[in-house]
């Protein structure tokens, strides 16, 4: 999409944005699987007597999935496959189709932030920066999750984060980060391309 619009010239009719079918599927599966991971994860969190629901902030049942600890674990350890396989497949797709070159943050975005006053260009840059930045957060959630799930088979994963508490803090921090991301991502997408852009990611 050509974003260098000269405001003084007559506007060409905007092309409806089109996204690859694969992208729509990966993106939607991300949303579903993340919803399952977070709600079941909060169910698991609620059972913790030290750094969790029984020792601190208790999450109301409306936000949890599974009803009790074993139920939360069933959902969490089922959805983790959907979440991680989908995320890695999406990543592979982005690499192999070279989508990373034109749809994710690049040097042109950083330069634009420094130089331009064009609000549309800035919005576009921020949009790409934000949805690129969430990727390491999701990967960290997976790594810390694996460390907590299998600390005996992957002890080096726990060591990277120092100790058990470090592991838990990073894992749990991904929850508010992702929730805030969803709000900002939605808003930036709307500002960058309106409802048409939002809808193009789904149908």
């Amino acid at each position, binding site marked *: 999409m050509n974003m260098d619009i000269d405001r003084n010239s007559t506007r060409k009719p905007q092309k409806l944005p089109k996204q690859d079918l694969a992208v729509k599927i990966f993106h939607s599966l991300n949303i579903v699987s993340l*919803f*399952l991971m977070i*709600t079941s994860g909060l169910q*698991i*969190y*609620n*059972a*913790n*007597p*030290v*750094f*969790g*629901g*029984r020792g601190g902030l208790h999450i*109301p*049942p*409306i*936000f*949890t*999935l*599974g*009803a*009790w*600890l*074993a*139920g*939360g*674990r*069933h*959902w969490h*350890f*089922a959805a983790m*496959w959907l979440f991680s396989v989908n995320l890695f497949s999406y990543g592979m797709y982005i690499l192999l189709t070279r989508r990373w070159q034109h749809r994710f943050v690049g040097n042109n975005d950083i330069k634009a932030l420094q130089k331009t006053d064009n609000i549309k260009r800035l919005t576009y840059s921020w949009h790409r920066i934000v949805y690129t930045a969430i990727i390491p957060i999701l990967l960290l959630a997976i790594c810390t999750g694996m460390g*907590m799930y*299998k*600390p*005996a*088979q992957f*002890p080096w994963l*726990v060591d990277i984060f120092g100790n*058990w508490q470090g592991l*838990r803090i990073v894992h749990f921090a991904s929850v508010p980060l992702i929730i805030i991301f969803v709000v900002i991502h939605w808003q930036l997408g709307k500002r960058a391309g309106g409802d048409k852009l939002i809808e193009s990611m789904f149908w």
Partner: protein
Amino acid sequence: MNHNQQEIERELIKVINPEVSRRQFLKTWGISGMGFFLTGCGTPALEDLVGKISEPWNQKVEQLIFQPQKPVPEFSSNQIEPKSLIINSFRGTPIIDLEKYRLIIDGQVNHPLNLNMREIQSLPYTSMIIRHVCVEGWAAIVQWGGVRLGDLIALAQPHASAKYVYFESADGYYESWDLPSVTHPQTLLAYEKNGEKLPRENGAPLRLATPVKLGYKQSKWVTRVTLTSKLTNFKGYWEDQGYEWFAGL
């Protein structure tokens, strides 16, 4: 019932809601889109169905990545976290006469054993400093000292057909493990914790201790070890409520 007990019951044990049975719930809402998920939050809807699909697969993966004879890296004594080791029990603390106490090892073995504490403590002593992980999500680095369960079982000469091991405890708790995890070099019957004689609340005189399984599998107050070739429908106190059986770390 005190407040803590109520907390535990709400979070760890399935409480059937008498007002809305699962059948009523499914009839009312059907299986339609996200609305179902949203109203499913906080209720038992679907969780055991999901578990039935995913847990067998997850346990296969766990058994695949488990390395039966590879020790897990240990910690140094200044890393021990004594205050972090929370004490959970499903039914209080039994009182055991240490003089009368006997450990029975039987089942699919050529030479069943009946040992008192003196005999057990005369066997080679192993000490380890490992991370204990509870399904509740907390962990603690702890020193356990005791006898290697694999060595004890070898004394009883298990049959080739033995694949599983059942554990009975003095408080009525019961567990079953796969044999490879039982014979892992860091699976002990422990009688020492953090340099001191194992306290009663932590399972004295003998408790299971290992870094390769979740805490609920590490029975306290062990009285009987039975080798079997098959698992029955009763796999363990918490397993029979819905928690996973292999529970490998």
